């Protein structure tokens, strides 16, 4: 079984500050980490490998320094690492990113793709499911347990507001995983030694046969017009008392405001 794990290198948001003038992240001096949800994706893949047999390739799109994230994934047990890096990828939104990752996954070959449910910098949770659409394969998002994988399908538990769904999907498929699925391991010493030496395979737009018009800024329907912090409205009033009293005060407030 061939598993591709998609990861993203993100700024450690626990140490991030915002530039008040431009409302953008100040990335200088902020350490880069593997997106925490992606650590769960790596762990899930490595466990499948340990329980049966699988080859785990970790894939990321990013600047050359994203190699560090790939090496860390290898130190946790991934077998191979692929870095998608090309100037043409710059400015990709989730749509263009998903297209690029999908083309790369096709090039690498896979039975299963595992992603973290979302990245902590963008918080969109779009890239995984969009990739599945580009690849025309089934996907299950918010997976909190991989119950079993047999032959051509797998059964997983999808986290819901209350409880979970049990979902069966045919392979190849894509999963996005939540924190509840596992506790990511720390690297091992042998893994770290391997990670130091492992060859990071680099792929460009041409290497994955991508349509240039769908890459980077050109391929991104999202246009950022303005970034701003939402205004905090202060004219709020909390109604207190028992539920009956609160209903009474709410009604009189609404009447005062001439809403009813």
């Amino acid at each position, binding site marked *: 079984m061939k598993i591709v794990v998609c990861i993203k290198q993100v700024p450690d948001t626990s140490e991030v500050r915002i530039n008040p003038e431009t409302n953008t992240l100040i990335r200088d001096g902020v350490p880069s980490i593997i997106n925490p949800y992606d650590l769960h994706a790596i762990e899930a893949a490595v466990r499948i490998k340990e329980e049966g047999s699988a080859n785990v390739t970790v894939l990321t799109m990013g600047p050359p320094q994203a190699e560090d994230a790939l090496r860390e994934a290898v130190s946790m047990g991934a077998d191979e690492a692929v870095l998608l890096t090309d100037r043409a990828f710059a400015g990709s939104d989730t749509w263009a990113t998903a297209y690029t990752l999908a083309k790369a996954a096709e090039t690498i070959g896979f039975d299963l793709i595992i992603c973290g449910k979302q990245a902590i910098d963008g918080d969109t949770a779009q890239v995984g499911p969009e990739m599945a659409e580009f690849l025309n394969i089934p996907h299950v998002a918010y997976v909190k347990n991989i119950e079993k994988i047999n032959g051509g399908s797998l059964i997983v538990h999808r986290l819901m507001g209350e409880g979970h769904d049990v979902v069966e999907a045919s392979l190849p498929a894509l999963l996005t995983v939540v924190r509840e699925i596992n506790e990511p*391991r*720390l690297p091992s010493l042998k893994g770290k030694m391997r990670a*130091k030496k492992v060859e990071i395979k680099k792929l460009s737009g041409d290497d994955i046969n991508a349509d240039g018009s769908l890459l980077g800024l050109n391929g991104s329907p999202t246009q950022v017009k303005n970034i701003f912090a939402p205004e905090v409205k202060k004219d709020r009033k909390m109604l207190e008392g028992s539920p009956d009293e609160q209903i009474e005060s709410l009604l009189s407030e609404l009447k005062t405001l001439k809403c009813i």
Partner: protein
Amino acid sequence: MDYFLTEDQQMIKELAAQIADEKVVPVRAELDEKEEFPWEIMKVLAQSDMFGLFIPEEYGGLGAGALELAIAVEELSRACVGVSTTYAANALGTYPLLLFGSDEQKNKYLPDIASGSRLVAFGLTEANAGSDAAGIQTTATLDGDEWVLNGTKQWITNGGEAEIYTIIAMTDKSKGARGASAFVVEKGTPGFSFGKKEKKMGIRASITSELVFEDCRIPKDNIIGKKGMGFIVAMKTLDHSRTGVGAQGVGVAQGALDEAIKFARERVQFGKPIISIQAVQHMLADMATEVEAARSLVYSVARYVDSGAKDISKVSAMAKLYATDVGMKVTTDAVQVMGGSGYMREYPVEKMMRDAKILQIYEGTNQIQRNVIGQALIKEAASKK
């Protein structure tokens, strides 16, 4: 300060520090309070290959030496000496096999020890054989193709939780120290059971138990080294393990110093943080200097051991003696710097002070270390004539 560690040694230090900070610090107070054996942490150490650090590569280890082990032990001790004692006692129990084991014994046991799937304990101490190791009363008698063990070992770290035990027993009482031999005994062997579990002042995450042998029969080949070599096996084992105990002293002292500095920067008295008071600064300065001195000695001795030198008894005793005395002094001073807060269980330094005490006592009291050093000085002086 740069300790001129290699890239691999730096990597070991960073990973051990990550385990200490992320997996040990959050649970250390609870493990101490409940006297709970740290199995979860042992699993993390196993998964991270930490148990294979000093085991040769041919047995699935990393083939590193005393310095790498000291670095890992130091980092774990910074977080919790109860945890590091469990980890280091595993190495202590392994040294007899590593230094004197037959190829068969090494092939049988070392891969499991390296992977962390089986924990090891070393059984030397008895009720009447502590500092006077020659006073051992446990016996091993050859009966056909089997050794029959009888007696009780006391205060054995990892006792009951370990799967593999290296035991020193008398094979010929009339010969005194020369009548001792070393054996490997597996948990589950009929006639081998565990007695009292001790309640301790510190290192409460580690387990300390009695080992009871009642007509416990083990195969003849389970003898480690030759008959009558038991005392040498024990002494060489201790020569190798002492740098690790020294590293525990450095680690616990560093942990206490870090806490004391953090507290002194935050605690305001007389209108200013107490770290700006010279009396406090001088205490911290002494503590920091002693930690650096202890670390330098431990690292130097570990490097000397790794060079393959034979005369390591004196220097390893010095490393153990000095670094554990520093561990005791610095943890005590950290409690003093932190005053009433330091004495409370809400802060980690009172535990560090309780934990540090054992380092001056186990694996040869610091008085015994001085004996070892003194005897080496006499021998060296005599050989110069």
